[in-house]
């Protein structure tokens, strides 16, 4: 999509870590992209724009976050047309972000550095499981899951017959404390497991029905 600067480096790349919680957790991915563009302009920071008929600032995200899920350390890459001290970027974005978004840290990238989306391998999630008005103890389900060699789920794609997939290999660490489950799972282009899918599987192991509306998810960390 974005070509690496072929000639001279007239732009500067930054990697931003930010929090997306509170009311901001209900902002969808597409809206978040527009919101970042506006927040950067409000902060008086000059973006690098794409070429073409419809130039837009070049911002990319490591991984989209589902609506309703908190993100404690989300990552995005931002190309700027000017060099700014990373701490300054953090400060300026924090004064222009709406409620629920907080810039945590920023670093400058070398021009050859791969994008965050390309580097992303794993994510650490916290899940507060709720089912039919109860807060189930998930220890048994977690032990059971970890003891298995394969855990097949059937994935439905539109217009295709359901496909059996093994998700066991996508889960690296899993522990429970009451109804709170912490999971380190594959995330990114080379393997991805949604926490909602994992929570569903864990609940079906203990024969309870996950409530998708009251269960809360939090992405605590993105790991390269």
């Amino acid at each position, binding site marked *: 999509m974005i070509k690496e600067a072929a000639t001279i480096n007239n732009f500067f790349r930054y990697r931003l870590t930010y929090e997306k919680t*509170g*009311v*901001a957790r*209900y*902002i*969808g991915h*597409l*809206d978040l992209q*527009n*919101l970042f*563009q*506006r*927040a*950067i*302009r*409000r902060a*008086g920071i000059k973006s690098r*724009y794409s070429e073409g*008929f*419809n*130039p837009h600032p070049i911002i990319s995200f490591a991984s989209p976050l589902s*609506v*309703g899920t908190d993100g404690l350390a989300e990552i995005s890459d931002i190309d700027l047309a000017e060099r700014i001290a990373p701490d300054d970027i953090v400060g300026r974005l924090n004064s*222009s*972000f*709406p*409620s*629920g978004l907080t810039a945590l840290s920023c670093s400058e990238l070398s021009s050859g550095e791969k994008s965050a989306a390309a580097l992303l391998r794993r994510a650490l999630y916290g899940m507060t499981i709720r089912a039919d008005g109860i807060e189930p103890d998930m220890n048994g389900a977690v032990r059971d899951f970890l003891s298995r060699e394969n855990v097949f789920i059937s994935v439905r794609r539109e217009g295709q017959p359901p496909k059996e997939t093994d998700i066991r290999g996508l889960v690296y660490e899993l522990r429970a404390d009451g109804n709170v489950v912490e999971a380190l799972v594959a995330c990114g282009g080379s393997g991805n497991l949604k926490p909602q899918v994992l929570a569903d599987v864990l609940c079906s192991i203990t024969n309870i029905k996950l*409530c*998708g*509306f*009251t269960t*809360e998810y939090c992405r605590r960390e993105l790991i390269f």
Partner: protein
Amino acid sequence: MNYPHSVLMRVQKPARYTGGETGAVMKDKNAVDARFCLCFPDVYEVGMSWSGLDVLYSLLNARGDVYCERAFAPWTDMEALMKENGLKLVTLETGNPLSVMDILGFSLNHELSYTNVLNMLDLSGIPLLPAERGDDWPVICAGGPATCNPEPLADFVDFFYIGEAEAGLDAVLDAYIANKNGKERFLAEISALPGVYVPRHFKTVKKAVPDNLDTAFLPENFLVPNLGSVHDRAALEIFRGCIRGCRFCQAGYIYRPCRERPPELLLNHAKHMLACTGYDEISLLSLSTGDYSRFAELSSGAMELGENISLSLPSLRVDAFSLELMGRIAGERKSGLTFAPEAGSQRLRDIINKNLTEEEILEGCRLAFLGGWTRVKLYFMIGLPFETDEDITAIAELADKVVDVFYNIPKYQRGKGLQVNLSASCFVPKPHTPFQFAAQASIEELTEKQRMLKRLIRSKHIKFSYHNADASIVEGALARGDRRTGQAILQAFKLGARFDGWSEMFNYDIWHEAFDKAGLSMDYYCQRERAYDEILPWDHVQTGVDKHFLISEMERARKGLATPNCRDACSNCGAAGCSI
């Protein structure tokens, strides 16, 4: 959080209900003398795109003694969940229920939002009738263009503010704060203020209007939605009112006189808006942008507002100058061009006083096609007064001529893939216009006209679209309604009418039943021609334009006579403070 997570996860777009946007004002609610909630009876995205919102929100919050918050109509999915979970409608800012506010101010931009007003009150647990709302309940007020006939909602509203907020809303709040513990005293006191109409204290009311916009309040604070809104761009109001008196157009009469803001002021304000919002597009907003007297100066200034800032120019007349300008703005991306002849024949265009000739339209199209445009939108109305079958035929003929213009241009000079989008909406007679006296076409007549037009269109380049005739009948009945109409609105609300302005939500059967139950007939409001000496339900609202003037305009329409625009010659309409 304003609503529980489990509820937000179940609705289509939870960000409609969370608040926390850039520009949302956070104040100590205990440190103010009056809490005001701006209530917009449509869904969040629509309300947040309405340019008046920033003006009111900023105007009220500029006061240290007032806290202005917002509430929008919850979409039907949210309404169902609120009822299921016993949740009340709350403001976006503090999440407090509307019932604890001091004043609720509804913005009424069109008649088909009336049932949403009642629904928002009901979802707040607030009684619908003033008699049931003692001093502990908020004062309910309403403003906006639809209140130029306040009677249909007069049974439910404590007072109307008729006119432009900048002119006198402050005085209303001062009076509220001075009479905090007595609703009746407050209402009695404000009924003497300009623009204020208290239905219980029936009187004639003069529209409140600032004489000029140079010194009128400009918003300092701008709301930027977290959720894609209908228009994601900054809107710059370049003038108010319109110099042209198209006889069907309510905005053209109720916002008289035409008042412009100077380019220097506008460009400075535009810079401020862009810096505060972070938008990369600015739209020049007015009823008829090309009529701005220093348009060349303003548009070239607006194009220099910043790198990567684009300009959009809605309601621009198409001519050589505007095409050149749009060509520069659009670069390679050429979107559709819009013409609004409104009527197909010159005879009918003279009747409605739309001074756009066939030559102008065709020449505009020719220049546009030469300039590379290939998409043209043509807006018409059907069901206009004095309309005959020939006028409907003329619509199809005009569209055909546009197609001919395209094919008469040598192939190498024109683009590829002509598309003419022809849209025909149903005319609705509105109060305070010369056509307020006219009978509205019936559903059967309108449907027949639509059918006829559809038959006449044969070119594959012409795409014809039209609106539901039945929604325009309900709109017409509410627009020219009287105090009794309120009972039909109440019945419709009880029967489940919501978001009537949304074609997928509109249900004619409900309205038919509602008017029946109220013992009223829509025909009485729609299909009846009014005599000039009939006292109309909105005659006590004085917009500044004299009823005599409206009568003489109706007579000129009958004779097919056009009336010059305000800049060419003043027709002495009576508009107060006019200095054109």
